[in-house]
């Protein structure tokens, strides 16, 4: 929430990636996500990384259980994708990017 207020501009796509420490899975997820966003949402997105090991209390807000979890807070409605985002097609469907884009 704090990050929203700090940000001057709002992006069309507000994404949060919840991870638990720098595990291979979370690094993989971040890499996959960045690649997809660069390809389809260039300049229209922002990724915020939340490490639950550092901020465990934030896990409650978005009902995070699994890591890594990607949460699309904007555009509404909220969508969640769990896993290392290795399947590009499914990520695109999950983020509803095809139809929006």
């Amino acid at each position: 929430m704090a990050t929203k207020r700090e940000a001057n501009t709002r992006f069309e796509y507000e994404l949060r990636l919840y991870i638990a420490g720098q595990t291979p899975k979370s690094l993989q997820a971040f890499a996959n996500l960045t690649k997809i966003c660069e390809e389809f949402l260039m300049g229209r997105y922002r990724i915020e990384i939340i490490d639950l090991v550092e901020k465990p209390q934030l896990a409650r807000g978005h009902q995070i259980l699994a890591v890594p979890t990607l949460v699309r807070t904007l555009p509404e409605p909220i969508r969640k994708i769990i896993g290392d985002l290795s399947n590009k097609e499914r990520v695109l469907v999950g983020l509803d990017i095809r139809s929006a884009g």
Partner: protein
Amino acid sequence: MKVKLSSPTQQERSLPKCRTGITGFDEITLGGLPRGRPSLICGGAGCGKTLFGVEFLARGAREFGEPGVCISFEETSDDLAQNAISLGFDLKALQRSKKLVIDYIHIDKSEIAETGEYDLEGLFIRIGSAIDAIGAKRVLLDTPETLFSGLNDEGVLRSELRRLFRWLKEKGVTAVITGEQGEGRLTRYGIEEYISDCVVLLDHRLQNGIVTRRLRVLKYRGSMHGTNEYPFLIEHRGISVLPVTSLGLAHKISDERISTGVAGLDEMLEGQGFYRGSSILATGTAGTGKTSLAAHLVDAACARGESCLFFSFEESPDQILRNMRSIGIDLARWIKKGLLHIHARRPTAHGLELHLVEMHNLLEERKPRVVVVDPISSLMSGGSQNVNDVTNMILRIIDRLKQLGTTGFFTALTPGGGALEATELKVSSLVDTWLLLRDVESDGERNRVLYVLKSRGMAHSNQVREFLMTGNGVELREAYLGPAGVLTGSARLAQEAREREEEVKVKQEGEDRQLALTRKLRAAEARMAALEAQKVSAARELEALALEGKNRSNSILEQRAEMARSRKVRSPKATGTGA
């Protein structure tokens, strides 16, 4: 298991336990759940498993100073709090005082897409941070299996749950994990495989329209535990598992005797009455005076200033008071004094276990010295047709009473026609004293007789006595044994009359004989007097005769001398010559 059972004390010492505070449960498990390990509480929908967990946390926080974390996968924090408040647990207050953290975990499958590998580290972190926030010692995971419906990858879930339970163990928290019963399995997804320390099965069954809840400890690694199914109840104080005891037979006994309240009955029991703390069963057909005997016992106890509890399953308190008043027992005054409490309930009002719980609670509350259950046989109609259930329940009551040293008086109706020496409920072997009341039908009337069928630890009378209900209560009379059996009622009265007659007759006869003998004696005396008189007269006659003879010979001599003189012959010296 066998080896462990053989040396329980050693085992109990080596296995630390965590008291749940749930009434009765800690007794069954000899101390509670295994400390620092996860336990599985499973059962069907609505069996009370969530409540079990919530009570475990709430009591831990409130009574044992162990804060708790509730991870709820099904109900929101507000719902949980609301449900718990009706059972006397204020979860919100506990949360405010930092003794409880509730985290509601919700997964909506429609919101979530899965792609690639993941784990549940987020869940671990959430639980971990909640535990650390308040220094929790207890954790409740309320149906983590819900995750299976929210996430697709069953393999990941399984391994993660397994890891979670291991992790909780490492954390040293005592965890309760609930699971919904699946078909042919304890839980829907078989997570009981991962929780091997303690498994408790809750169950609720509908029998004849009445719900009976039961609890069973399926498994308790490294500890002895009660293996039976125990009825339990969810009521305003939370869960009550019953019995509180019944694992042992080690109650202290008393040599003190208490009056039965009926002088004649005391007489039959060595003149002293029942043993305190013993259990007494009075059986008989309808209207043989079972309740009246109970009332006497209660009356006598109250008169000694002892508190009494009367469980009535057939009559209302007012009815009992009126009926007992009619035989001169005033129980109302004891109620006024607060010594007597009559608890009247229809046997069908609720399931057996609720009756049992109510009894337990009342015992706890009032701490009576004498308890009457009138009649136990009507519990049979209370939904459960299973004789064993009722027998079990009564055994539990008896056990509890014995443990408390409370005298228990149970009445049971024996159906007409059946063998009188057998109770339907097979409890006769459990009781110490058994009074048998029965009707004797003869000469167009029904009368009551009583005898002591058994009374452990005393030389009781073997007499059959007639049992009379008078305006002054119950009286026991000597019964007459006639050629046709025991004489009672008017037959007894007739016998008494006959005996009185007999007595008079014997007396009369005696007098008669006395008279006759006297007469005989008098007659003999009279005869003797007559004979005496005869004797006297005979003697006189004899005397007279002798005198006459002498006179006659004298005169002959004189005549001879005269003649000699006249004839001038020799002097009459030769007297005998003339003859």
